[in-house]
């Protein structure tokens, strides 16, 4: 594909983008569209699969193959595609409700199996499309349409959950942080296997300002570096060590005054499709169907 020359606009579909003015999704879309040409993969070999939600409209805007499926099921659908078509670059775009509420089980199983899909989780800590109910990542006490006196739920930490599920690649980025987001996309794309990328995304209609502490103050954005102690925490980052990544995932702005962005974990393991393919290859191909149906005890009549 060396001669493949694509630019950002090649990845824009003819569909009118339908998010609220000011939605963080626009920034993510722009970052992804401008990163795509870097992949050097032809558009017909890229597929975006989403569930349902504001975030999930993403595939409509990408000039690639795409499916806007049903709520929470994108990781399962993408698994079938990725396993049967190892030649494709398969991406899942999902929201915090889509991925962690109704779709939680498919997410953790896709990560456990190390299916070769890149999962972009747009976390705005709210249900946007259904007009503002709290989500599994909304903070306790959050007042929303369905929690007039505040939510009583303890929220998920999406990265900790992914690590607990045995994910081989886990990262976090911010919608408006184009360089940071692009770095993470690059690392995720380079990782053969399941990659979970949490993207903090501002929903300016139902949960405005959730991430202002790093959206507004650029200098508050602190990035993980392999082998380096993270900020003042003294934790030396090791992308290959589970417990370290887990410890770093526990840091919060409220509690620790600093929040890690970047890659928490990246280890290389055979991906699900590769393991499946190996078994197919080992089974001497070209099975003889006539032999199969004629196998076992047989007898003739007449």
């Amino acid at each position, binding site marked *: 594909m060396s001669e493949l020359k694509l630019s950002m606009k090649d990845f824009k579909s003819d569909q009118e983008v339908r998010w609220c003015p000011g939605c963080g999704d626009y920034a993510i879309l722009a970052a992804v569209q401008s990163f795509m040409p870097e992949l050097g993969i032809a558009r017909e070999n890229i597929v975006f699969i989403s569930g349902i939600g504001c975030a999930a409209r993403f595939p409509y805007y990408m000039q690639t193959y795409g499916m806007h499926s049903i709520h929470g099921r994108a990781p*399962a659908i993408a698994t079938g595609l990725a*396993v049967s078509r190892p030649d494709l670059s398969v991406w899942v775009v999902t929201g915090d409700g889509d991925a962690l509420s109704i779709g939680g089980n498919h997410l953790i199983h896709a990560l456990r199996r190390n299916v070769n899909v890149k999962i972009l989780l747009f976390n705005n800590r709210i249900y946007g499309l259904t007009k503002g109910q709290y989500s599994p990542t909304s903070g306790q006490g959050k007042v929303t349409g369905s929690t007039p006196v505040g939510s009583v739920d303890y929220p998920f930490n999406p990265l900790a959950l992914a690590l607990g599920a045995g994910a081989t690649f886990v990262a976090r980025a911010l919608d408006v942080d184009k360089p940071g987001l692009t770095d993470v996309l690059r690392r995720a794309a380079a990782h053969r296997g399941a990659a979970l990328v949490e993207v903090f995304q501002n929903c300016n209609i139902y949960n405005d300002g959730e991430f202002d502490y790093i959206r507004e103050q650029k200098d508050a954005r602190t990035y993980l570096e392999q082998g380096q102690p993270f900020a003042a925490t003294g934790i030396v980052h090791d992308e290959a060590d589970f417990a370290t990544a887990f410890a770093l995932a526990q840091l919060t702005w409220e509690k620790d005054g600093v929040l890690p962005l970047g890659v928490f974990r990246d280890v290389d393991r055979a991906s699900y499709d590769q393991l499946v393919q190996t078994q197919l290859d080992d089974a001497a191909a070209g099975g003889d*169907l006539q032999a199969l149906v004629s196998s076992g005890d047989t007898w003739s009549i*007449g």
Partner: protein
Amino acid sequence: MAKPVEQLESVVIRFAGDSGDGMQLTGGRFTSETALSGNDLATFPDFPAEIRAPAGSLPGVSGFQLHFADHDILTPGDRPDVLVAMNPAALKTNLRDLAKGGSLILDTDAFSDRNLKKAGYESNPLEDGSLADYQLHAVPLTSLTVGALKDVDGVTPREAERAKNMFALGLMSWLYGRETESTTSFIEKKFAKRPEIAAANLKAFNTGYHFGETSEAFVVQYEVKPATLPPGRYRQITGNTALSWGLVAASKLSGLDLFLGAYPITPASSILEELAKHKAFGVRTFQAEDEIAAVGAALGASFGGALGITTSAGPGIVLKSETVGLAVTLELPLVIVDVQRAGPSTGMPTKPEQADLLLVLHGRNGESPVPVLAASTPGDCFYAAIEAARVALTYRTPVYLLSDAYLANGTEPWLIPRIADLEPIQVEFARDGDGAFLPYRRDPETLARPWAIPGTHGLEHRIGGLEKANETGNVSYDPENHDLMTQLRAQKVAGISVPAQLVDHQEGADVLVLSWGGTYGPVQAGVRRVRKAGRKVAHAHLRWLSPFPANLGDVLRSYDRVLVPELNSGQLLQLVRARYLVDAVGYNRVTGKPFRAGEIADAVEAVL
């Protein structure tokens, strides 16, 4: 000196014992021997949902019934002529089915006070005369077996005892003059890794055989002549095996790789297990985290150009409904296999029923039309699977294929098909280039939309679950478009070309029996009985439930009365009454058992 040989036209034998007694294996072996002897046959294994209920308990009883004959037969038989009961519980739960005067072979060693109590016997039936009406053969199977194996070394008493089913098999093999080589080589293969166990089982088998020859307990030997079936090479097959192979065949015939997304569930699991063996055919089996993921993955594979299949039963089929609804609007090929079991809810997982018909037709939100077909016999599952895939691929639609627990595990002799004779399935993916791509522009013939798979240059497009504009497939909330798309989806399914309905008519018959799915055997057998009795009746068996054959209305209206026997509360009945306004009546039983030919005959007589 050899014993006198009595000729029989057909025999029904039931082996019954503890789940631990290996009755399924025994029955299976006897069936193979019988098949090799050229009889026509049909079997019905009937085992408990528990893996192993407590030894000797009533729920722990496992049964295997075999019907074989010198002519073509359709069912495993209504009631056994011969019952082999390995313990009191087996006797208790099965005796009621044995015809008076039938023969009864019991393992007397198993009739201990403890076992009698477990089975709920006040007194010992061997002694209280309660078995007077039967030809009783009381044989100390266990002790004879253990005795015979004393000198086989490396075999524990426990292991020796467990070989008693082979003694029983040997005995029955002698009684009906079965050939024995196949079992001999089977035992050697099965226990190749433990030669002493192989030896023990062989010894038990042969001892049982000779016991028959020598013991006073058996005065005659029986013979059932080979049946005259259509010429050709045969093998035994269960419905789930036939269905699995049919799917592999569909993959070969269409040139598409098979992708199975499945989650284990009784009685469908063995399809997953069978297909998992066929990686050499490019078959990918994916055991998903649940049924929703299973069908989702299959749909994802279909989107990528594979033959996407998902298999399940009962509650699992229900869980797939939302995703099938997506497949309906995406208009992608998908085959959903429903091996029906008794419901509602968890119900009776190992028992057959036909109560999912309205579920698969209507179990989705909105107007969501799908084709539905059903297999009629174990061997037919092979052809039904190919048919389902053909329609899914040709019309770009999810298709439900209905089987049931009776077909799944039942066996019959199967005329081995010549693969070369099977009609190929033509599939054309949309190809490069040709200007603006319209993912929902339909083929004028089939109304199928183009199947443009990822990797095809220039056809990049997006599809989804929201309503789509005709032709472009872009999201549309236009009222008239929605009405149009709703009609187009319905017309596509209604327009699927299915063969005209054949009727097994009888001159002068004014009653039609209309059946579908796994009840074919018992219903046709019942119809034959009625005719034997000199009465006239016609029989039509449906393969396609959606769409119905174009001539079905005419068929139904050409009879005064229509009887619809179903293992449900009247589901096909509701459909034909609504569609054709014929005053059809149902014969409905929901017992978790297949129909008996006898009850069908009675039901027909009742409306004649």
